[in-house]
C-alpha cells in the first residue's frame, strides 16, 4: 500500500543476552494514530526508539518513509529529521531559551534562515499555548509547560511522524491534561502519531489502533473500540482490568 509510512518486519533486539524485542511486525499508515501500552519493561519504549534509531535493532527490517534504517548515517539523520520525538523527561536543552530550543535544529539541520526559523518557532509555541514563555529558560518552566515546549520543538522540524515516549509519566496530575490537550490538537490536525502511554482516556479519544505489548512481543493489536470492548488475550484482559 502506498500510504504506508512505517514498516517493521521481524524486528529483533537484544540488550546483551536479554531479548527486548521479539519478532515485531508493525505497519503504520499515514495519519494513523497508534497507542502502545503494556507493563514496564515490555519493550514499548525500545520499540519506538528503534523507529528513529535511538536504539539499533539487530535483526529484521525497519523502513521509515521509504528509507531503510541501516548503518548508513546519512539515512539515519534523514529519518530523524522527519520523525519528531517527545520524551518522558522532556530533554529540553537547558542552556538555551525556549525559543532557541525550538529554532536550533531548523537553523542548523534544515538550514532555514534564522529569522524564518524563529517565526515558525513562535507559531508552534502559540499552538501549544506557551508563546509567553518563549524568552524563558527551560528551568524556569513547569513540567507541563516544558513538555509542551518539547512538543513544539519537535514540530518545528515539520516531521511527518511524531513519536511520544510516555510524555505524561513525569508530570504532576494537574499538568497531564494540558499536555494531552496539545497532543489531541495535533492528532486532529492529521499528524501520524505513535504514542507510548498509560493514559487510556487519551487512547480511547484519539487512537485508531491500540497495541498491547508484553515481554518484547506484540500481544494484541486491534482497532481502539475493539481493543477495549473485546480484548482477545488473557494477558490483555488482566492488564486492562488493572489499569482501568
Amino acid at each position, binding site marked *: 500500500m502506498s500510504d504506508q509510512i512505517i514498516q517493521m518486519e521481524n524486528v529483533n533486539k537484544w540488550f546483551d543476552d536479554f531479548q527486548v524485542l521479539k519478532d515485531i511486525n508493525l505497519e503504520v499508515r499515514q495519519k494513523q494514530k497508534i497507542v502502545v501500552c503494556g507493563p514496564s519493561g515490555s519493550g514499548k519504549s525500545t520499540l519506538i526508539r528503534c523507529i*528513529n534509531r*535511538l536504539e539499533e535493532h539487530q535483526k529484521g527490517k525497519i523502513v521509515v518513509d521509504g528509507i531503510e534504517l541501516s548503518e548508513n*548515517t546519512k539515512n539515519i*539523520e*534523514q529519518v*530523524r*529529521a*522527519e*520523525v*519528531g*520525538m517527545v*520524551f518522558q*523527561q*522532556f*530533554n*529540553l*536543552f*537547558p*542552556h*538555551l531559551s525556549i525559543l532557541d530550543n525550538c529554532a*536550533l*535544529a531548523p537553523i*542548523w*539541520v*534544515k538550514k532555514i534562515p534564522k529569522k524564518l526559523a524563529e517565526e515558525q518557532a513562535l507559531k508552534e509555541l502559540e499552538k501549544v499555548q506557551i508563546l509567553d514563555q518563549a524568552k524563558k*529558560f527551560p*528551568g*524556569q518552566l513547569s513540567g507541563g509547560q516544558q513538555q509542551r515546549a518539547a512538543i513544539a*520543538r*519537535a514540530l518545528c*522540524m515539520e516531521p511527518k511522524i511524531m513519536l511520544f515516549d510516555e510524555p505524561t509519566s513525569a508530570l504532576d496530575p494537574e499538568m497531564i491534561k494540558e499536555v494531552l490537550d496539545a497532543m489531541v490538537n495535533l492528532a486532529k490536525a492529521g499528524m501520524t502519531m505513535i504514542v507510548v502511554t498509560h493514559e487510556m482516556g487519551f487512547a480511547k479519544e484519539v487512537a485508531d489502533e491500540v497495541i498491547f505489548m508484553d515481554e518484547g512481543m506484540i500481544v494484541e493489536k486491534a482497532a481502539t473500540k475493539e481493543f477495549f470492548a473485546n480484548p482477545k488475550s488473557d494477558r490483555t484482559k488482566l492488564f486492562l482490568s488493572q489499569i482501568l
Partner: protein
Amino acid sequence: MIKTLNILGKPSRNKLSLFVPIGFSLFALAIIDVILSSFFEINITSILPRWLNFFTPILFGFVGLHYIRIEFSGNRILDKLNKNINSNWFNAILTLIIIFVLIKNIPPLLNWLLIDADFVGTSKEECSREGACWIFINVWIKRLMYGLYPNAEIWRINLSFLMLIGLVISAFFVPIKIKKYIIIFLLFVFPFIAINLISGGNFGLEWVETTAWGGLSLTFIISIFALLFCFPIGMFLALGRRSSAPVIRYSSIGFIEFWRGVPLITVLFMASVMMPMFLPDGTYMDKLVRVIIAITLFEAAYMAEVIRGGLQALPRGQYDAGKSLGMGYWRMHLLVILPQALKLVIPGIANTFLALVKDTPLILVVGLLELVGMIDMAKSNPDWLGFATEGYIFAGIVFWIICYSMSRYSQFLERKYKTDR
C-alpha cells in the same frame, strides 16, 4: 567550671548594661596586654606569678567574651559577633588566639615590607634600612619583565601586549556583531602577528632569538599559546575517549594516560634535549616552540579529563534529544553537548589554566628564563647577592595577581552562563 565565672549572675539580656561594658573592657584589656608586651616591652601583669602571667591575655579575653555571650541580646552587632566568632567557649579561645597571632605578626611584616623598606635608589648600598630592599626589584625590573630582550627593541613587546589589552577591552564594549570578529581575530590571527612582531626577522625588524626572550613577557607568551592550543586539543581528546570507534578511543586513552603519567619536568627535558634527535635532518625547531608544544600536550591531557567529566555529567536524554532532531555527531556536540558540558566544568578548566600558568617557571630547567628564572639570575648576580626573599615575594605577588584575576574571571563566567532557575 565555666559556671564559676558567673559570680555576677548568668550573663543575660536583662543585665545587658552590666555585662557588656565589663566584657568588652576585659577583652580590650587582653588586647592591650598583648600589644604592650609585644611591642613596648611593658608587662602590666608582672605582679602575677610568671606561669600565670603568660596566659593572662587569654584569661582576660576568655572571661570578657564569656560575659558578652548573650543570646538574643537585641543588639544586632552584638548578636552577629556572638554568632560568628563567640558561639561557645572553644570558639572564643580560637578567636582570641587568632587575634593575638595577627597582632604579633602583622606589624612586623608591614614594617619589613613597607615602612622600613627602601624603594628609591640604584645600588645595593642604598639599601641601608632594616626592611626589604625593593631597590633590587626596581633596578632589575626591565630584565624581570623582558628578559634579555635588547633594550632598543622592547617597544615591540610593549606594542604587542598593548594591542592585546586593547583588543580584549574593545571586545567587551563593542556590539555583539563586531565582537564575534574581534574574538576570531584575537584567537586565530593576532597571536601570530604578535609573535612575528616580537621575534622580528621581517618587515625590517631586527631578528631577536628566542633565547633572549624572558621575564614576565615570556611567562605570558608561553601561557597564552599553551592555553590557546591545549583547550581544543583537550576537547578532541575528551570526545575521542568517549568515541565508539576503538581506534580513536584507545589512541585517546593512550595519549591522555601517557602525558598524565610523566612529570612535566621530564617532558621539558625530552622536548629540549631528545626531540631534536627525532626530527628529520636539516629541520630545525626553535627550543621555545618545542617547550610550548610540550606544555600544551601535557596540559591538554589534563584538560581532556576535566572536559570528559562534564560530558559524563550530562544526562543521556540530551544526546537523545539532539539525535532525534536530526543532528549528526558534530552538530549535536557543538550545539547541545559541549556548551553544557563546558559550562559545568568551568571551575575545573580554570583550575587547569591556573596550574598551567604556575607550571611555566619549570622551563627554567631547559634554560629559558621567565619571571622566576630571571629572578634566579638576578639574585645570583655578584652585585646583588642576598635578595632572594624580595625576589621571590615579588614573583609570588605577580603570580597571585595573574591567577586571582583568572579565578575571578572564571567565577564571572559561571554566573554569566548560569541559566537554571
